[in-house]
């Protein structure tokens, strides 16, 4: 049996977790087993039905008043108890902020090694091989884990969702003991960034600006463009971030975020090696740059050699029109 930790934010199962559930379902089919889900703390009814729809055969609901707000210590204790009781062969997480925080702690608690931020899985014989980018995507490493249960995190936006056709299954309430003294760190609230926009790691479309944006106020052009596009976010190159034009949480590349959107649009980004590594798993790359020799054009599916300030306004209008018509 494989298991997936389902993260709940704002009363909903995270899309990244449902992607992991989908991929675990494909692995389970190949291995002739099934997938169960583990959820911690109070879970709204809708989230349960979503998790069944995406293929969980059972949901273990880990219960303790101390799981009301997230703490890696409390959640790790709960998941440790789940693994001891249910004995899954694997426990997978989405490589979200929470998953990246929690999974290694759970792995250490279980005394097992893990694979981080996987972008591909394969069944080889009766083992699972995990493939993950290293050096921000400049190379891909494939590994097998020699400890059990298998623990791994899967990068959001990479694995396809299954059709949500699963039937409701059994829900098992599992009270867990979380001693007060064992939880000394606690998430005490979230400060949402202005605009409440989605993160570049979760966006389907990223409109990204580099040195060619020339000034911080010009990032408003990209924000306006992003406002037209569903599930999009504004990204930036390292030089734009280091110039103080936009916050570092927008930075894409080796010292920023590695992204895999459906479309990555680079405006005024020349394409340094660190940046190209971070965008290499994008499905489509679009580049707009004045310099026809810019390295970004060597990887772009579609390029426009020209002044981004002249391209963005008609592009925004054309996109608006295309989206309204589709």
């Amino acid at each position, binding site marked *: 049996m494989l298991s997936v930790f389902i993260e709940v934010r704002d009363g909903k199962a995270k899309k990244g977790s449902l992607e992991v559930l989908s991929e675990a379902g494909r692995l389970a089919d190949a291995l002739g087993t099934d997938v169960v889900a583990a959820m911690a703390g109070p879970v709204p009814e809708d989230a349960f039905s979503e998790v069944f729809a995406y293929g969980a055969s059972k949901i273990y609901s880990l219960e303790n008043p101390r799981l009301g707000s997230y703490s890696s210590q409390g959640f790790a204790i709960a998941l440790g108890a789940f693994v001891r009781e249910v004995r899954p062969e694997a426990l997978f997480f989405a490589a*979200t*902020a929470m998953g*990246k*925080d929690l999974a*290694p*702690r759970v792995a*250490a608690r279980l005394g097992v*090694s*893990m694979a*981080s*931020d996987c972008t591909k899985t394969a069944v080889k014989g009766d083992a699972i091989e995990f493939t*993950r*980018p*290293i*050096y*921000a995507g*400049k*190379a*891909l490493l*494939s590994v097998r*884990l*020699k400890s059990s249960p298998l623990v791994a995190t899967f990068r959001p936006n990479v694995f396809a969702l299954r059709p949500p056709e699963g039937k409701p299954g059994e829900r098992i309430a599992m009270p867990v003991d979380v001693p007060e003294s*064992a939880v*000394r*760190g*606690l*998430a*005490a*609230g*979230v*400060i*949402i*960034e202005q605009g409440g926009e*989605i993160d570049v790691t979760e966006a389907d*479309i990223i409109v990204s600006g580099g040195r060619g944006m020339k000034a911080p106020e010009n990032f408003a052009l990209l924000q306006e463009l992003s406002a037209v596009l569903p599930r999009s976010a504004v990204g930036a190159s390292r030089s734009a971030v280091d110039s103080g034009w936009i*916050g*570092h*949480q927008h930075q894409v590349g*080796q*010292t920023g975020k590695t992204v895999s959107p*459906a*479309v990555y649009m680079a405006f005024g980004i020349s394409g340094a090696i*660190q940046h190209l590594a971070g965008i*290499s*798993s994008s*499905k*489509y*790359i*679009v580049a707009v740059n004045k310099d026809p020799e810019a390295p970004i*054009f060597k990887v772009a599916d*579609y*390029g*426009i050699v*020209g002044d981004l300030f002249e*391209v963005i306004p*008609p*592009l925004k209008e054309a*996109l608006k029109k*295309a989206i309204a018509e*589709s």
Partner: protein
Amino acid sequence: MNIFVFIKRVPDTESKIRLQPETKSVAMDGLNFVISPYDEYAVEEALRLKGKTGGEVRVIAVGKEDSLVILRKCLAMGADEAVLVKDDADETFDGLRTSRIIAALMKNKYASHDLLLFGKQAVGVDNAQVPSMVAELLGLPAANVVTKLDIDGPNGTALREIEGGLEKVTFSLPAVVSAQKGLNEPRYETLKGIMAAKKKQIPVVTPEELGLAPSDLDSRVEITGIDLPPGRQAGKILQGDPAEAAKSLVDLLHREAKVI
């Protein structure tokens, strides 16, 4: 306050990565090595905290002897002591292995510790495992991917980056914190610091001295392959004036790529 910072020697981010398929590894010759960029924020934060609250800053590297260079850099930045835990293994990609070594060091040599600072991940391996794992092995709370840190007596508050925002984490010391870009601007070494660092002894500890058995040092991550990512081809350059080019771009995204 007893502050510990853990650093790793990595190829700089401009490195072109070459593979050695026969050993399933990344070729390390000809690369320029640096302290992992996120670790530098951790060192800087430690020095700033020391400036505010007093105490000692110890910087620890787990690795081969060539890590002495980055340890010396940290001494030049102002760390009080640097320690090398000599581990001659090539990269294992096994975060738990490194975490066991660090946990053994803390339990055996530095049982009195208030704050353990890390970079949010080592550039290259990109695991982001060790801070959380060490925290668990030592029974400590952790705040990871932190862009703001306040320590007030026995308590800490951190802002950590999450999707589309920041999460506030409160914790009590001792604790683990991992640094994200934006936490601070690392200082440069001063000439005086560099001269003083040259004279300092860097103690070397071996895993055996920490009571670790050879089986504790086995990697449980078996590398089955290493590849370059599929290459991307240069695509179409769209012609015409900006408005025409923008229109053909949207057409292609709609009809050919089917993403709009």
